């Protein structure tokens, strides 16, 4: 029996999922884009979602769970309204990424690696974002912010706070 999780999804998300699946030579290959579409819609991949995907793609629960648990960017805990990922890898670190993080933690009142209690901000480390020449870099939702200077973080902090306060984040289309 199909579980009712699908009803929670926006119609566009459902339509997108229906479009994605037949494009692949094998149904199972659509697993990642389907999970991505769900996460963009819900900001989390819940147990209900997993069960729904199992049915949708004719898989076993373990097939979906193994993928959700393997990839760092699929989340079984909700992502905050604003998702901040600061690169910690060498090139960015050489340009002061850790100093940037110290300031962000303090100014945003959010500890690294956590989501703020009100669910507004998720602050995390990322590994190399392929933007090393303009480091330190951070991915804020869909947008890459580069050349973050420890002494000039005002605009970035304001932007994060704005997004954290402002309801719906820009969704990443699947």
């Amino acid at each position: 029996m199909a579980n009712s999780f699908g009803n929670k999804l926006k119609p566009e998300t459902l339509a997108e999922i229906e479009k994605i699946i037949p494009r692949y030579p094998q149904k199972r290959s659509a697993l990642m884009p389907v999970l991505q579409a769900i996460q963009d819609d819900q900001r989390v991949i819940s147990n209900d979602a997993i069960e729904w995907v199992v049915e949708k793609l004719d898989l076993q629960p373990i097939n979906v769970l193994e993928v959700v648990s393997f990839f760092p960017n699929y989340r079984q805990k909700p992502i905050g309204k604003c998702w901040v990922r600061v690169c910690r890898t060498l090139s960015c670190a050489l340009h002061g990424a850790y100093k940037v993080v110290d300031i962000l933690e303090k100014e945003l009142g959010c500890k690294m690696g956590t989501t703020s209690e009100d669910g507004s901000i998720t602050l995390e480390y990322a590994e190399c974002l392929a933007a090393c020449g303009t480091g330190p870099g951070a991915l804020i939702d869909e947008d890459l912010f580069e050349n973050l200077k420890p002494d000039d973080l005002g605009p970035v902090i304001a932007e994060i706070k704005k997004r954290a306060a402002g309801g719906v984040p820009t969704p990443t289309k699947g």
Partner: protein
Amino acid sequence: MAAKETRILLKHADDPNYSTSIDSYLAVGGYKMLEQAVTMKPELIRAEVKAAGLRGRGGAGFPCGVKWDLVDRKSGKPIYLICNCDESEPGTFKDRQLVHKDPHQLIEGIMISAYANNVALAFIYIREEMPKGARILRQAIEEARAKGYVGENICGSGYSCDIIVHRGAGAYICGEETGLIESLEGKRAYPRIKPPYFPAVLGLYNCPTIVNNVETLCNVVHICRMGSVEYAKIGRPNNTGTRIWCVSGHVQRPGYYEVAGITMGELLYDLCGGPLPGRKFKAIVPGGGSMKILRYDERFKGKNPDGSEYEYGVDDIPLDFDGVAAAGSMSGSAGMMVMDDSVDIMEALANLVGFYSHESCGQCTPCREGSLWAKKITWRMCRGDAREQDLDTLVSMAGNIGGRTVCPMGFSTTWPVQSYVGKFREEIEAKVRENKVGMRGDIRLIEK
């Protein structure tokens, strides 16, 4: 005379009047090569790519034409083409430029390569952290489809091929071609064992599959345009074409530079402006975080044609596959990280070891446990909590990872540990001896 860039792939990328739209690309002669290619015999295009000497730009430098020759064309199974845009090797950001600034060049390269190899379905595997890139590519594919360059009956030739943009989800190991294939099949990205799983024979869905890097596929367009003979004149023999070097860290002008036939010194000084004021270069990681480090004051021995020896330094290293290999490292993904004398080398190592430990897929014990040990040991050395035997343990353990695992990622712990400790032993030993909390360098490179 100061060295200059040779912009071929990036010719239009930074032109303010150029955009990612198909009109921009068509205005500079885009898709002409695809129109021409689909009237040719596929094997002729393959022969051109082989004759051009194009080597893979993803990391290993394997000749592209030879790879295409290995494809099993007799199995009767469909052949797939995958463009590897997982770009996640620390220090590398060239594919980002090609995808975000000139997506149609890549699509044309993919379509020509697909036609040349009788491929009916191609994929672009793009890392999750490039959401805009994925969107740009999807839009470009739709534009190209509307003009008959992707999809059914390409340029009226009767040949059809579609492209699917597939996003990753934050795992570095999806850059490794067989891990990528597993991921594309909807599974954990556990690399497959070779043999028997050489993608050219047993790849996606156990069908013959070609995996090529973004930059490699972009080059195919220009090989078609120039012809293999002209193309092969760029660079040195066995190192043909340009390469986009990504320079990050302590230089005046970090960035991406498309060059051919220059030396490392020319890149570092002429193009990147040399060290920061008052600083001296200390060390260079030439080809992405996995590669062995070079000490800036290191000397190498070369051989003249008459057999006599000569000495040269880091600045004299020819900036290509063979040049960097001769200096004992690898050009890898051309992600060059430069460190000056403000850096504590132990911390730099700890930072990278932290990366590889985070990114081990966990399938093989030596890589999973070894990289974690290496992280624990290097991090406690940095935190002033080292034990007497730590350095020896670290080196001997690292030597037991690379070569004993399913995929080459084992070396990503082995090579940095061996080369950093090998080349900076005194500095590291002194740090361990002092064993103080706090860092010697000016900048903190790992978490507290």
